[in-house]
């Protein structure tokens, strides 16, 4: 007879994984004592799922991808995540496939035990049903995205092509183009086959500039050496062709006859939500006005990302990528005007741009790090560069920083030694007051320039901060001043007067406290990580906080950020200026409930932070 016994390490791990964390102790013990453990090697095909006996798989270490039978990615599973539950819930045969991305240990619970836990404990059942629903929703989203990729050229050029004959005159065709409001016409031969192409540009360069008469036949000025595309081609193939040949018009053919025309504008319209195209556009702008025009599409990008159900984290990263691209292009433009930089430098982004979690409204937070050899004369070059970039960003919708944390401010445009002195001052002689506005500087990232210079500064900051109790205590004291807007009786504490009466600031009271917690844990270990969620994951793997707390904070961050995005998306759609103020009354009761939970997570994490970092010092 064998009596099962628990292995504490395995029980503890399960206890950190929702919904196991909510199981009564006796049930958790029973589950832990029945675990089976297997190890899977990356790239080992078809090794994992046991198709004959469905079971619940809990990832202990490693990374796995779940794909459907057609190879579409459904889910990416990391430590603490699950797979195998859909067939346990539905009773259907397993059809999904599993790929091992990173070697790892997987705990397994057999189907009978899973069903027993489900029927004995409602929250357990609910958790997996919700996970299943989420995955289905994701699946739909992945399919929509792939639709974008599989669209064909014929689908996006709806109208009949505007055509002319080679014998027609320039004057006739110019009138035709104006009437049809097109920038090009296809020239056909007498059998309706593609013969040539005339564009606005041809009229300008080959007619007006060369002083030809309006009676010139199209045959004399048209382009005959043509690149064309079949209506069956994929949209992205058309994009590639146009990029490769540096052309803006592409005749679309079916059986050799023109059926339409695709232009760069069509492609952009077809993929409005595509940040890659937006960034490509940014890279082509030679003037601030051009960048200003392109950045008008950012709200549209944001709107479509929200509609597509992207996570707040993804949206934050994408919007920041766009800001980074704008910043870099402005620097290129400035250097084009001012000449090459006289010495090495790095353009620094702080705050939300640094953390890569920008939203619909962002102020500028930036600085310039110069090499130690920079002279006063060099500085006037960099001041001019900073002015160009800061003004440019302002015109593109990134307002000047109210606290003047910008490269144009002398204090934030310094040689390496100056920056080091600044940071070491904050770290080694900290005071709560001095650090009050300094936290954004500890979320710094190099957007452009000399990475060696940047990493020199970063290393200095990280090693000075690591384990520095007084500094961390002061930072914590500041962080604890911002609390979630929850009253003693679990009601929301709202603004009593002013413009935002009955509302609260989601960024200030919800997102910033989590950013603060993540930053303090990162600085405590001298980590170079700046992204909030990555910092929290790292803190969990260093055992500074429990895996459960990290996951709860990550979920809370995502939830509040997502609420903020939806709020801002709605404001943009209504044509008003987006802000961070939310009136809880506008939420569904479920969302209100979840928001309370999210705030409770923040409050308890703040309490833990106080114990860990301020004991006896504050």
């Amino acid at each position, binding site marked *: 007879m064998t009596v099962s016994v628990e292995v504490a390490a395995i029980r503890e*791990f399960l206890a950190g994984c929702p919904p196991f964390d909510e199981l009564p102790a006796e049930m958790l013990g029973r589950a832990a004592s029945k675990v089976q453990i297997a190890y899977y090697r990356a790239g080992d095909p078809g090794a994992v799922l046991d198709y004959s006996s469905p079971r619940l798989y809990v990832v202990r270490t490693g990374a796995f991808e779940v794909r459907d039978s057609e190879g579409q990615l459904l889910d990416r599973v990391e430590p603490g995540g699950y797979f195998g539950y859909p067939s346990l819930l539905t009773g259907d045969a397993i059809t999904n496939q599993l790929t091992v991305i990173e070697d790892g240990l997987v705990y397994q619970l057999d189907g009978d035990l899973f069903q027993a836990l489900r029927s004995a404990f409602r929250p357990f059942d609910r958790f997996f049903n919700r996970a299943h629903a989420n995955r289905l929703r994701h699946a739909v989203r992945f399919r929509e995205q792939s639709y974008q990729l599989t669209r064909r050229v014929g689908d996006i050029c709806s109208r009949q092509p505007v055509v002319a004959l080679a014998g027609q005159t320039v004057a006739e065709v110019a009138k035709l183009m104006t009437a049809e409001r097109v920038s090009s016409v296809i020239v056909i031969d007498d059998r309706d086959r593609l013969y040539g192409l005339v564009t606005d540009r041809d009229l300008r360069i080959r007619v007006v500039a060369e002083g030809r008469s309006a009676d010139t036949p199209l045959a004399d000025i048209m382009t005959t050496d043509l690149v064309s595309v079949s209506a069956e081609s994929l949209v992205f193939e058309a994009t590639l062709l146009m990029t490769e040949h540096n052309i803006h018009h592409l005749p679309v053919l079916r059986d050799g006859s023109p059926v339409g025309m695709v232009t760069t504008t069509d492609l952009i319209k077809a993929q409005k939500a595509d940040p890659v195209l937006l960034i490509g556009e940014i890279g082509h702008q030679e003037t601030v006005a051009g960048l200003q025009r392109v950045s008008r599409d950012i709200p549209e990008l944001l709107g479509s990302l929200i509609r597509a159900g992207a996570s707040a984290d993804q949206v934050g990263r994408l919007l920041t990528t766009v800001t980074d691209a704008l910043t870099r292009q402005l620097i290129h433009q400035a250097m084009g005007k001012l000449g090459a930089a006289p010495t090495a430098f790095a353009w620094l982004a702080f705050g939300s741009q640094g953390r890569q979690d920008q939203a619909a409204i962002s102020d500028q937070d930036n600085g310039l790090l110069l090499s130690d050899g920079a002279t006063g004369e060099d500085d006037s070059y960099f001041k001019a560069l900073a002015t160009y970039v800061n003004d440019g960003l302002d015109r593109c919708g990134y307002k000047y920083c109210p606290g003047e944390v910008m490269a144009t401010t002398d204090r934030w445009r310094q040689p390496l030694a100056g920056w080091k002195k600044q940071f070491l001052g904050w770290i080694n002689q900290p005071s709560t007051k001095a650090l009050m506005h300094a936290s954004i500087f500890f979320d710094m990232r190099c957007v452009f320039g000399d990475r060696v210079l940047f990493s020199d500064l970063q290393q200095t900051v990280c090693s000075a901060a690591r384990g520095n109790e007084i500094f961390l205590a002061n930072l914590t004291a500041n962080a604890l001043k911002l609390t979630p807007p929850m009253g003693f009786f679990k009601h929301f504490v709202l603004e009593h007067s002013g413009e935002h009466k009955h509302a609260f600031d989601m960024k200030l009271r919800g997102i910033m406290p989590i950013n603060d917690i993540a930053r303090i844990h990162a600085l405590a270990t001298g980590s170079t990580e700046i992204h909030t969620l990555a910092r929290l994951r790292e803190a969990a793997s260093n055992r500074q906080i429990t895996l459960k707390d990290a996951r709860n904070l990550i979920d809370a961050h995502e939830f509040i950020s997502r609420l903020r995005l939806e709020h801002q998306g709605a404001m943009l759609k209504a044509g008003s200026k987006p802000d961070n103020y939310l009136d809880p009354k506008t939420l569904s009761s479920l969302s209100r409930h979840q928001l309370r939970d999210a705030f409770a997570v923040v409050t308890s994490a703040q309490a833990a932070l106080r114990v860990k970092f301020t004991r006896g010092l504050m």
Partner: protein
Amino acid sequence: MLAGWTYQLKQKRYLARCQHGRMREYLRAAAPSRKADFRKSCYLAVDLEMTGMEVDSDHILSIGFVPIDNMRVMLAGARHILVRSSLGVGQSAVIHGIHDRDMVGASSLSEAMDCLLEALQGRVLLLHYAALDLAFLQEASQRLYGVPLLAMVVDTLVLENQRLQRNSTGQHGQGLRLSDCRRRYNLPDYHAHNALVDAVATAELFLAQVAQWFGREHASLARIVSG
């Protein structure tokens, strides 16, 4: 290496010598096949806690074990047996956290060994640094049953050492302790130390080692047993 025929020879010899029912049953069971793929065999990962390192003067304090079937560690078959000792727990309590007060309700060594034999029957014995634990098990077996413990042994330390030798690209001085080996396979750190946790840790290490070495490639049990 103990070839198949010597194993069978010993099986017969020991059976002739041994009158103890539990051990006779153990010896009569079919041995795991050395020629078959190692994945076909069943294993029992075992770890002992002792009062010290000397077989002559120290005693077994606890035995932890967990079976591996179909290359899956089966926690449902795990056991952790505390063993009564005439010596106290002494200084070693500092290391494994077993105190004299925990020993109330502990088994006698003979009960513990009977239990181990039952679980080990037909399985390959899996140990990390087999030499030490095996010496204690042999001593106990000799004393209780009058014969040594006959078992095919896979030693995860030996496997790891072979791997390091084979890929020796100047990586000298790499630790061979259980926790060092586990870290190389990115296996989690288990903080609490007792015989059962270490047996589970050894079992996981074994799965990781063979997965990375062999993948799905065929390999006989003979390739990995150390004696």
